[in-house]
């Protein structure tokens, strides 16, 4: 067990280094110097290169880059807030906190609505409710986040006027409704669909029949026997789901004008502010990898039958 966890941690670190290598290579593939502006002279670029160590061999640069990131030095912004350290921009201006709050809420909604809906659909299999939920979930995984966000904004925000159309810094609870709904809708539908399938699988197992034969109430069969065993596949998708919510946050924050890390990332992409793009990519990737690690280990605790060699297909 311990060996497995250690192995996974080593693999996770290898992935982080891989991502940092990818970002480093890409950073150096970008033509021109980051300090190139209309006014800069060759000497100025030379000076700036020396100042930031860009005149050293690439391998030394890569080492410095790894060391800097390990020390939390993410470089300075090149365009958006020129000269300001990237760390200050991302963490000390409330951007990260706002996005984290939104993302965690969406995850919470996805799990706390998706699983019960899936259970209900499996429990009421073949009824109109199951049919309705199936249509809803099929539709939900086909609609792109931005289309859903825009539709909500137009109909609930502008036409009905129930919720503010610009969420801003999220001062009222009303401002959260539409962003969280559009961020989590795909995941709610996906989890519901998955739970329904795995529940139906579990219901046909022998131990359920045994429990039924013993006279256990249906409610308890569903909650104690079927649900527990059907949750395993649901846990596995939580890792990729974090990545999906992060991707959705780029769109949702842009649509609802929420000044979070997602919106800032999109702006930095459009402005080609490379240090911010790199830093954000590395930080968010690390979060996703960390979550995958946690999920994989949690997986083992939920179902001890699972063999822990990562190469098993």
């Amino acid at each position, binding site marked *: 067990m311990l060996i497995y966890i250690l192995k996974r941690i080593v*693999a*996770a670190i*290898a*992935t982080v280094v*891989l*991502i940092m290598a*990818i*970002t480093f290579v*890409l*950073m150096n*593939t*970008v*033509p021109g110097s980051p300090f190139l502006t209309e006014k800069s002279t060759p000497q100025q670029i030379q000076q700036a290169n020396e100042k930031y160590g860009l005149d050293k061999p690439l391998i030394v640069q890569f080492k410095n880059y790894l060391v800097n990131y390990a020390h939390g030095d993410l470089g300075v912004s090149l365009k958006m807030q020129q000269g300001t350290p990237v760390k200050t921009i991302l963490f000390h201006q409330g951007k990260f906190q706002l996005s984290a709050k939104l993302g965690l809420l969406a995850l919470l909604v996805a799990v706390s609505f998706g699983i019960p809906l899936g259970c209900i659909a499996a429990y009421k299999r073949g009824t109109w409710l199951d049919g309705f939920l199936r249509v809803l979930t*099929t*539709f939900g*995984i*086909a*609609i*792109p*986040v*931005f*289309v859903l966000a*825009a*539709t909500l*904004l*137009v109909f609930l*925000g*502008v036409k009905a006027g129930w919720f503010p*159309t610009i969420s801003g810094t999220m001062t009222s609870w009303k401002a959260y409704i539409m962003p969280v709904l559009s961020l989590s809708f795909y995941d709610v539908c996906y989890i519901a669909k998955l739970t329904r*399938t795995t529940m*139906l*699988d579990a219901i046909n197992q022998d131990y359920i029949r045994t429990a039924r034969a013993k006279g256990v109430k249906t409610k308890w069969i569903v909650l104690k026997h079927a649900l527990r065993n059907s949750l395993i596949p649901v846990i596995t998708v939580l890792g990729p789901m974090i*990545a*999906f919510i*992060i*991707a959705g946050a*780029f*769109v949702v924050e*842009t*649509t609802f004008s929420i000044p979070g890390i997602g919106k800032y*990332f*999109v702006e930095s*992409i*459009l402005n*080609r502010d*490379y240090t911010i*793009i*790199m830093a*954000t*990519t590395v930080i*968010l*990737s690390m979060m*996703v*990898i960390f979550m*995958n690690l946690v999920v994989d280990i949690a997986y083992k605790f939920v179902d001890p039958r699972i063999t822990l060699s*990562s*190469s098993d*297909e």
Partner: protein
Amino acid sequence: MKKGLAKFSPFQVDPDKVWADYDITELDFEAATSSEKEDLVLLRKSVSYWRDAARRFRRNTVSMIALFVFILVLLFAFLGPALIPYDYAKQYRSSQKLSPGEYSAQELLIKSIEDEVDCMYATALQPGSMTALDARDYYFEFKGNTYAFTLDQKLADSVIVLQGKDLSIVKNSQINNGKITGSEPLAYTSEPSDTAKELTVVKSVFPHVVGTDSQGRDLLARTMYGTRVSLIVGIIAAFIVLIIGSLYGAISGLCGGAVDFVMMRLVDLMYSVPDVLIVLLLQVVLKDPLQAWFDASDGLIANALSTLGAGIVSIFITFGLLYWIGMSRVVRGQVLMLKKQEFVTAATALGASNARIIRRHLLPNCVGQLAILTCLQIPSAIFLESFLSFLGLGVSAPMASLGSLCSDALGTLTVFPYRMLFPGAVLTILILSLNLIGDGLRDALDPRLKK
């Protein structure tokens, strides 16, 4: 006779009866005729794998409806642009910011006389630089006749109208309350000169069915074009994934041993990389070098790719780099499973070459899986393309994809919601129908998986 034979079963023998009580005659022991034999044959004609799958697919109502909807979207994207007179890239200056079905003031003016004329050419309704006609030779065709004429001075703010056999120029100011109050006759012949330029005449003013954008481009035409771009990007990306993924998986599965181990560790490593972030990074970084390459190089490939644009090409590169992993895992699993099957052992024992085994045994058994995965890859590629285009990466103006149309509409979402909702709805319908077709295909090609 046959009846008696059928009765003669050990399970139906009544022990109290003597053999003579059964109605058995010598005739019962005669050889059966060929027609009697045929009656007993219960086998039906053998049905091939694909025919069987097609039958299962046809029985699936949801998939059939999805297929029908998908065909409608295809017609919309590929046939639609031929049915409307507007171009996706051309800016009609007099018709900016129109709501669905709304006519601009100029269009209303021209429209008011459309009942009085057979056909017309209005300079005010032409896109961009074409709003004035230079002095030169022109011709147009109408109902099989050719009308050639010469303009001896520049013409603007006017309508060239054909009424019966009279061709004339009507100034916009000469139209009053739907009546033509004055006109200047225009002499014409039926033989256009060599230098004559063709004009496209219209019978009536075509409505902007879903309005126009702030540059005066027709939104319906743009959505049709965008659907086409999204579809093509999705299909090409899916095929890139198919080729790379199945080759990688097949090599890994066939070679086995150390090669397999190394190749699969690489896949594991790449699998844990959060793709969306790397995709965004790649999009940003690839765009400039690609554009520079297109501008500098004069080769055939560079020219072909530059018509697609740097954004779309970098989407293809991203798919080629990152998205083949799922496919390669499935193909490897299939190959590993099939490799151990008895029929492969038998073929090897009979001396079949590796190439023959791959061609005759492995490939046909994998085709179903490959078809399912490729079909489900198309909507996910469209999804990703629209996501990137929405963030301002991917395709760039004047080209359009469904994602970039939504992105363009975002700024004015509260004022002109239909600009977002129309392409958004088309995108959702497209992805939905492709998802359902993929599901149906999976159920049809691999019934074991059906839940």
